[in-house]
């Protein structure tokens, strides 16, 4: 297999399993024929076209899958989305660290203190990157290492909590604190042969969404520096924008409950974080809306199937 074909196959692996089973060999052949001789990389235009076509293929409604499977795919999608937002946050903090580094060095901040600040961020970023690449390349060992590291990061975050153990603590641990565990579980499930059929398509499609979220977070780095916004505000704006985007996708007729589950997961996580900071029960207004919409959506889908 030539280097070009290997790269084209890496791109076609972004498509859902059912699509690949039907079209992959032809798709690879046509893409190779469409490349001028002597190239070792597919043309940028073809690469972009394959990525967009893969997103469109994922956006189609799942055909008569049991609800349990749809739910798992939705959770995997939501976990990927939240992981993407998390990657964006880490990138933002790393950027701020680098931004203030010259000043800190001038002020004589000890090197050990600087290293202690930046090391966990780098470790977390590397873990998410490793996990993403391992899932895409289907390297089970890599996924295992990434998942274990993420669980470790989640446990450390839990153990470092010093506040009172009340409802806010429970929510903090149960929802936002669960992201690393959720991502680790979804990534591990994606490598299992049978479940991969269910989880991997959602996982890959959703990774594309989270990449967009991460790109936005990176752009937000410059926004915080220029407009003096706090990272927390940017966090809320980015999650709200991404949630809005997903809502638009649903309204545009994707008719895919997986996106709604993912959206629900993101909004619940966002609302819980807001509640932890403000103790205002109204923070769960968004959750109530999502639950209501999900219920109505599900009823409509059931009626449609029954008819």
């Amino acid at each position: 297999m030539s280097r070009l074909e290997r790269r084209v196959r890496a791109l076609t692996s972004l498509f859902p399993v059912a699509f690949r089973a039907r079209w992959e060999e032809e798709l690879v052949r046509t893409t190779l024929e469409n490349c001028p001789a002597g190239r070792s990389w597919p043309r940028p235009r073809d690469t972009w076209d394959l990525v967009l076509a893969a997103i469109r293929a994922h956006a189609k409604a799942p055909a008569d899958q049991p609800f349990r499977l749809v739910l798992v795919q939705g959770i995997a999608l939501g976990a990927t989305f939240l992981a993407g937002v998390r990657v964006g946050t880490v990138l933002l903090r790393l950027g701020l660290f680098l931004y203030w580094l010259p000043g800190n060095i001038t002020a004589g901040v000890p090197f050990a203190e600087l290293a202690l600040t930046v090391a966990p961020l780098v470790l977390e970023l590397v873990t998410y990157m490793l996990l993403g690449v391992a899932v895409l390349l289907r390297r089970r060992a890599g996924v295992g290492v990434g998942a274990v590291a993420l669980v470790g990061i989640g446990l450390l975050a839990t153990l470092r909590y010093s506040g009172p153990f009340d409802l806010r603590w429970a929510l903090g641990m149960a929802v936002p604190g669960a992201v690393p565990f959720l991502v680790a579980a979804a990534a591990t499930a994606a490598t299992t042969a049978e479940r991969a059929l269910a989880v991997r398509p959602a996982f890959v499609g959703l990774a594309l969404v989270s990449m967009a979220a991460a790109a936005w977070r990176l752009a937000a780095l410059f926004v915080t520096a220029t407009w003096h916004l706090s990272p927390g505000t940017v966090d809320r704006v980015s999650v709200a924008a991404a949630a809005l985007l997903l809502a638009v996708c649903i309204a545009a007729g994707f008719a895919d409950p997986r996106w709604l589950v993912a959206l629900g997961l993101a909004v619940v996580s966002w609302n819980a974080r807001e509640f932890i900071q403000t103790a205002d029960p109204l923070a769960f207004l968004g959750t109530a809306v999502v639950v209501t919409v999900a219920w109505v959506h599900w009823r409509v889908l059931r009626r449609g199937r029954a008819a």
Partner: protein
Amino acid sequence: MQDPTFLILLALSDRPRHGYGILLEAKELSGGTIRIGPGTLYGALERLEDAGHVELDREEIEDGRPRRYYRLTRRGRGVLVEETQRRENLVGLAKRRLAHR
């Protein structure tokens, strides 16, 4: 109907073609202004086959790889004729309106 789908149906209107043949013919038909990518092509072929507008004509093995030829169905030809008529009407309307100015 979007331009790529229209061009794919048009490319298949004279004889069966394989995927790469469809891409070349669509580019030729549009005078090089519309270039359909492989991902768009097979996404559209899936929709068109599911809708019964296109069907498999034959399969050949070349260089150890499958080479499938697709043809337009009767229903697909009907849709193409309707869409051509719709586009023609639209162009006619635009011409009349522009002539008045």
